[in-house]
């Protein structure tokens, strides 16, 4: 089991740093190019949601996102923790894909890119989203 942890200020300009930190880790785990892209996209979309919704009050250096990646039990488990406005998971849903409109794609993409997506409802403050990608035969 290997675990990696990061903490970064929740700012749009830091999203590329988050992707840049995660990419070499998932590359080493043997995921193929499409899978790596999907993992980066899911993490990026989740962090974008934290910036836009959990820390909706605006830019503040105190607003942090904690990320942890754990590659045990034949799966990659990614935790995205924030200390912003608590969200109600039952209110989060992607848009109907048959309806062509700009918004509501992010949640759909997170679910489409990962094998499991759920909130840890035990956290008292903020939110913790768990993203899981199974290791499978498509690995290099």
């Amino acid at each position, binding site marked *: 089991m290997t675990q990696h942890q990061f903490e970064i200020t929740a700012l*749009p300009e830091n999203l*590329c740093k988050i992707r840049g930190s995660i990419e070499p880790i998932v590359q080493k785990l043997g995921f193929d190019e*499409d899978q790596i892209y999907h993992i*980066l996209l899911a993490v990026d979309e989740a962090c974008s949601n934290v910036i836009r919704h959990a820390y909706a009050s605006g830019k503040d250096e105190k607003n942090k996102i904690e990320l942890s990646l754990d590659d045990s039990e034949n799966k990659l488990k990614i935790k995205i923790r924030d200390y912003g406005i608590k969200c109600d998971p039952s209110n989060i849903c992607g848009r109907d894909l048959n309806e*062509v409109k700009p918004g509501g794609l992010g949640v759909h993409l997170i679910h489409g890119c990962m094998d499991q997506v759920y909130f840890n409802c035990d956290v008292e403050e903020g939110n913790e989203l768990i993203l899981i990608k199974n290791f499978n035969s498509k690995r290099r």
Partner: protein
Amino acid sequence: MNVLSEQKNGVILLTVDGEVDLNTSPQLRSKLKEILKEKPEKICVDLGKVKYIDSSGIATLIEAHKELVDRKGELVLCDIPKKIYSVFELAKLDMVFKIVSDPSEVIKG
């Protein structure tokens, strides 16, 4: 991210280079809005040099597509890298946009 626009045979060719995310997509949106003010009939967005695009970037393309369709115009996407095309498939947008492999298919001499 860099966005370059040029007019070729009546078609606006928009070449996007780099990473399009929540931080950079406003720049793409602003460029598309500026172009749309000129009421072009056809915009061709070359994504061949795009290394990354998220839902905010895709939403920007959908906005422009809808505006063009509303006035009988067309937004064409070209040279989408394979890993990015897989995201368009996930969002079922490969059925919405006209997608070609090379800008020359849209810009005919």
